[in-house]
């Protein structure tokens, strides 16, 4: 049945074409036509396969396409690998065959298998003289090799040669390869040539040369530093493509250091102004927006340049304002520019007027129905509240909607916003929400991130000790194993040191509330290890401090922990040390002490433990048991965890002993590095890792021994029509002419050598690696404590009662909004925000209505659906055609189905279909002239195609004919579109 439909479909097409051709159509002619076409296609395919590949390869692609499972696919690929391994090593393979093998290798690699056995053949192919093969070779190596691959050294020579080629396409291919393959070590081999290519006559080459230099700069900034002035020069290239490409490296450079580029502010502003005024060629327009990608890049650069610089910022205000006014909010690209403007505004010195427009733009984003725009709105809001925290309040309901949205991406972004706007008044609500979210997700990366954010916020804004401890318990219970161990140690330190205030009462209160809550949950068998460590430590240190719990009770709990987690040595170590502390504190306080029987048992068990650490702890404990109270107090002073332990590094207390031994004739100690014999090697290596240029690799040919470096200056190309005058810095000439020319021959900084710094030494004696001194006091210094702050929740819920103007906003949401945003605002303000919320709701519904209405009007107007109206040129109406394009095949299919049902519809729909084809063909052919899609529609409606259209459709109607050809071609190869995935045939843009 399906097959029949398909058959009818294609026959139908020929029927209609022929009927257009000669109204008195005869079937025999159609048949002949069809026959001839088939023969032609078969002939073409017999020699080289359907898409320029061999039958074999097409079969491979096909069989993988039809594979039903990943394992089946893997089996096919493995078989293919075997075949290729065998074939590729045969002698005398014709080059075209080899090219196909390489493409098959690319295919294998793309599917995730290892094709490294064939890499060398791809490398060889880059050496070929024919551009066709060379291009394939370059494509393959750029896909196969990472920049640190060993084979790259074999390609460098070819790249060097190709960069000198007369054919600009060869140069382009080589530059493409440069960007991916040239690594830090090989940059000096090509950099000279790449710099020369900046003055090439073809703009495509100049552009790629700029990008290649950019990628060099990313890999090794030092090797390109002396060439930076070239980027400035290229900014005034008269080709907009080159200028646009230059913005990429400049953006990176400015991001590293703003100051040397302050003089360019005027140029950037000027360029942006010209772009916005449509002074660039039309071909840079994208959906009627003038060069949007260049605009966005410029805005990014300006955001960097204007940050914290009033003078530069003031130059930008006008142009940013203009762009925002002009931007088309109906299209995606218009919104992209708008968003970038908001980012720029939030980064540069604030201007009240621009901030207002930015706030309006954000409001539009947040009220939109599109999730994408909402997401951008939340992002933008997060940037703007840094300058003006009040802005968030207008959008509270929109934010809460996003928070409760089923879309996880949006939710996450909103949490990021909340994180940024947390203050002491709303920390409880926000952190509670974050913890709930954290519990609900599985993605460990974001679980970790959310957990550490919760910890950070709790540390910064905690309103009370009790809340803080409770929050930390929750975080650790659910994500204890994911959070950084540092966080656990921070928590211990925080409990030990208190909140940094000299309030002992508050500190001890914090500790006892911690102890209390830990005793409650310590029996939970599923606590993560990091959390149990904290619990054990706190119980040991402070369990008995406030006298609420007896030593035996605490000891009992600790023994339980050690018993329950007998497989985790770290927890047991913490537990046994905690036990020791509890015992010591008791003893030094002069109370009667006796070890619990289970504690005794534990000690005995640990004394025979496999872990030497545990053993040692157990033995130490036993030793302490025998000491008197005085000694114990010295060893384990009460609450001394914050006191520094002084370490006598010179071990002076041993002096007596050493002295005595020496007197008794012992040999004196010689430090390791002073001992004879081995010292030479290590010293030399230590001292001079840099002064060994002997190993440097050379890429350039040996020079004639005249020692004269050919000083060819980089050609100074002057362009007649400069886009903008770019001021060059005063030092520029000396920098660009001198070092540029001799860069390849190897002067100081760029010379190639094996780098020995930072490489682990393999021979000689182990060097003492100085561990980074761990500073113990990196607790956030700006932490602000808000002990005993009033709890906003109660206040707001009461004040909310009397007024309730808009019923459609659910009470719960309002409450949440109030607690999130209303922390310190007074009542009237909140009232206003409530009404704003109502307003937003209304406008949203109208928006919705409009959206609903639009598509329907479109469809009614375009009753006979115009096929593929999408005009890829500079036409208007591309945006509108998105929704209205309909696959012509589907139309046909439907019609044929109808006719099979017995209705004689063919005749009635005939004209429509004819117009359909004529429409399609005109559209395809007259892409550049036919700017008015309405005209087409009109034709279609009338059903009377005008003569010119008709002839056009007869000669060639690219899109439809192509599609049908394609259809026939693949079916001939045995790919049946409907069998697995009918979408294979649908236009991607349809």
């Amino acid at each position, binding site marked *: 049945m399906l097959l029949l439909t398909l058959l009818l479909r294609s026959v139908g097409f020929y029927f209609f074409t022929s009927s257009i051709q000669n109204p008195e159509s005869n079937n025999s002619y159609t048949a002949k036509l069809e026959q*001839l076409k088939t023969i*032609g296609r078969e002939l*073409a395919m017999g*020699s*080289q396969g359907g*898409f320029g590949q061999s039958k074999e390869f*097409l079969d491979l692609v096909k069989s993988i*396409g039809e594979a039903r499972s990943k394992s089946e*696919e893997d089996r096919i690929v493995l078989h293919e690998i075997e075949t290729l391994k065998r074939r590729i090593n045969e002698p005398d393979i014709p080059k075209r065959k080899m090219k196909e093998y390489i493409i098959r290798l690319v295919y294998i690699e*793309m599917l*995730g298998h*290892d094709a490294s056995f064939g890499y060398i053949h791809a490398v060889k192919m880059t050496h070929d003289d024919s*551009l*066709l093969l060379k291009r*394939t070779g370059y*494509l393959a190596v750029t*896909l196969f090799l*990472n920049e640190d691959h060993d084979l790259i050294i074999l390609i460098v020579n070819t790249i060097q040669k190709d960069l000198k080629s007369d054919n600009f*396409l060869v140069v382009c291919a080589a530059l493409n390869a440069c*960007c*991916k393959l040239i690594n830090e070590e090989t940059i000096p081999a090509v950099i000279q040539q790449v710099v020369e290519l900046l003055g090439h006559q073809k703009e495509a080459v100049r*552009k*790629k040369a700029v990008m*290649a230099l*950019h*990628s060099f700069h990313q890999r090794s900034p030092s090797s390109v530093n002396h060439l930076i002035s070239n980027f400035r020069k290229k900014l005034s290239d008269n080709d907009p*493509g080159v200028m*646009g490409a230059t913005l990429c490296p400049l953006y990176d450079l400015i991001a590293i250091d703003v100051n040397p580029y302050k003089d360019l502010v005027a140029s950037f502003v000027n360029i942006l102004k010209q772009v916005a005024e449509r002074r660039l060629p039309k*071909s*840079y327009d994208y959906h009627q927006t003038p060069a*949007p*990608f*260049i605009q966005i890049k410029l805005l990014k650069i300006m955001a960097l340049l204007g940050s914290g610089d009033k003078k530069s910022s003031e130059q930008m205000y006008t142009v940013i304002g203009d762009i925002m006014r002009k931007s088309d909010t109906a299209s*995606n*690209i218009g919104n*992209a520019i708008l968003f*970038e403007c908001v980012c720029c505004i939030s980064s540069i010195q604030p201007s009240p007027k621009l901030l207002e427009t930015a706030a309006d733009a954000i409001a539009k984003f947040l009220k939109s129905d599109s*999730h*994408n725009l*909402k*997401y951008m709105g939340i992002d933008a809001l997060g940037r703007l509240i840094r300058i003006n925290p009040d802005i968030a309040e207008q959008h509270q309901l929109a934010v809460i909607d996003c928070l409760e949205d089923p*879309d996880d*991406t*949006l939710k*996450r972004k909103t949490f990021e916003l909340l994180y940024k706007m947390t203050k002491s008044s709303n920390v409880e609500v926000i952190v509670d929400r974050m913890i709930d979210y954290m519990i609900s997700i599985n993605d460990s*990366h*974001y679980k970790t991130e959310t957990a550490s954010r919760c910890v950070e916020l709790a540390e910064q804004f905690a309103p009370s000790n009790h809340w803080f401890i409770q929050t930390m318990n929750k975080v650790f219970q659910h994500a204890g194993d994911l959070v950084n161990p540092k966080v656990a140690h921070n928590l211990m330190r925080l409990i030990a040191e208190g909140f940094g205030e000299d309030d002992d009462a508050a500190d001890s209160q914090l500790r006892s509330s911690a102890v209390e809550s830990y005793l409650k949950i310590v029996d939970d068998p599923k606590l993560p290890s990091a959390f149990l460590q904290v619990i054990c430590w706190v119980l040991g240190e402070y369990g008995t401090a406030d006298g609420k719990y007896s030593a035996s009770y605490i000891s009992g709990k600790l023994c339980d922990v050690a018993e329950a987690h007998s497989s985790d040595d770290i927890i047991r170590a913490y537990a046994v040390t905690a036990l020791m502390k509890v015992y010591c504190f008791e003893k030094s306080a002069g109370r009667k002490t006796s070890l619990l029987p289970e504690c005794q048992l534990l000690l005995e068990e640990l004394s025979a433990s496999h872990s030497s650490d545990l053993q040692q702890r157990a033995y130490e404990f036993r030793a302490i048991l025998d000491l008197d109270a005085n000694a114990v107090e010295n060893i384990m002073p009460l609450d001394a965890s914050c006191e520094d332990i002084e370490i006598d590094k010179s071990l002076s207390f041993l002096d007596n002993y050493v002295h005595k031994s020496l007197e008794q004739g012992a040999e004196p100690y010689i430090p390791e590095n002073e001992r004879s014999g081995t010292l030479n090697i290590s010293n030399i290596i230590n001292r001079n890792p840099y002064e060994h240029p002997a190993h440097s690799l050379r890429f350039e040919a040996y020079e004639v021994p005249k020692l004269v470096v050919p000083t060819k200056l980089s050609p100074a190309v002057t362009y007649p029509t400069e886009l903008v005058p770019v001021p060059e810095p005063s030092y520029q000439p000396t920098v660009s002419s001198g070092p540029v020319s001799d860069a390849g021959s190897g002067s100081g900084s760029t010379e190639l050598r094996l780098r020995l710094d930072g490489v682990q030494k393999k021979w000689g004696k182990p060097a003492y690696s100085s561990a980074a001194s761990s500073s113990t006091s990196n607790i956030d210094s700006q932490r602000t404590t808000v002990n005993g702050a009033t709890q906003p929740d109660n206040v707001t819920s009461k004040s909310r009662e009397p007024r309730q103007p808009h019923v459609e906003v659910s009470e719960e949401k309002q409450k949440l909004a109030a607690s999130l945003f209303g922390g310190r605002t007074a009542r009237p303000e909140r009232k206003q925000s409530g009404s704003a919320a109502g307003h937003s709701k209304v406008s949203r519904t109208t928006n919705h209505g409009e959206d609903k209405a639009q598509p329907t009007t479109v469809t009614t107007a375009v009753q006979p659906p115009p096929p*593929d109206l*999408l005009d*890829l040129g500079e036409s208007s109406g591309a945006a509108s055609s998105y929704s209205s394009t309909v696959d012509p095949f589907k139309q046909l299919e439907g019609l044929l189905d109808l006719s099979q049902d017995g209705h004689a519809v063919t005749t009635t729909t005939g004209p429509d279909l004819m117009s359909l084809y004529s429409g399609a063909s005109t559209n395809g052919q007259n892409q550049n002239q036919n700017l008015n899609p309405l005209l087409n529609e009109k034709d279609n409606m009338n059903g009377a195609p005008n003569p010119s259209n008709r002839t056009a459709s007869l000669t060639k109607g690219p*899109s439809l004919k192509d599609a049908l050809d394609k259809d026939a071609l693949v079916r001939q190869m045995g*790919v049946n579109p409907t069998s697995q995935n009918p*979408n*294979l*045939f*649908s*236009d*991607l*843009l*349809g």
Partner: protein
Amino acid sequence: MIHFVLLISRQGKVRLTKWYSPYSQKERSKVIRELSGMILTRGPKLCNFVEWRGFKVVYKRYASLYFCMCINQEDNELEVLEIIHHYVEILDRYFGSVCELDLIFNFHKAYYILDEVLIAGELQESSKKTVARLVAAQDSLVEAAKEEAASISNIIAQATK
């Protein structure tokens, strides 16, 4: 900066991959597995962005094919969405109503075109016309090489017109 480009079909089959940052073959498979699991299951009305390992992945579905690009946190998602569309429009212009099948059998051509649009993870050319012109220039060389094979079919094509 764009770290990689992925084309994945709705069934999770890989149609094209291009890596601008270094990833080992093992990591690549893992990335593809992870991302196709995340992206293919997302509903149609949700954001076209996914946060992933500290990066953002922007994706867009065309017919049955997902175009995905991985970018940095500070990049503009909407812009990248349009870069994807820009690429698809160029493909469409090149193949003439491009469909997934074109990309399956002509993936190397899709690679060549991508190389003219993006380079080292940055957009290198925002003019469709310029890209088209360059690709055509390269193809004309290919055409010359294939002339003999195509000549017969050309003659027949002429005859049938």
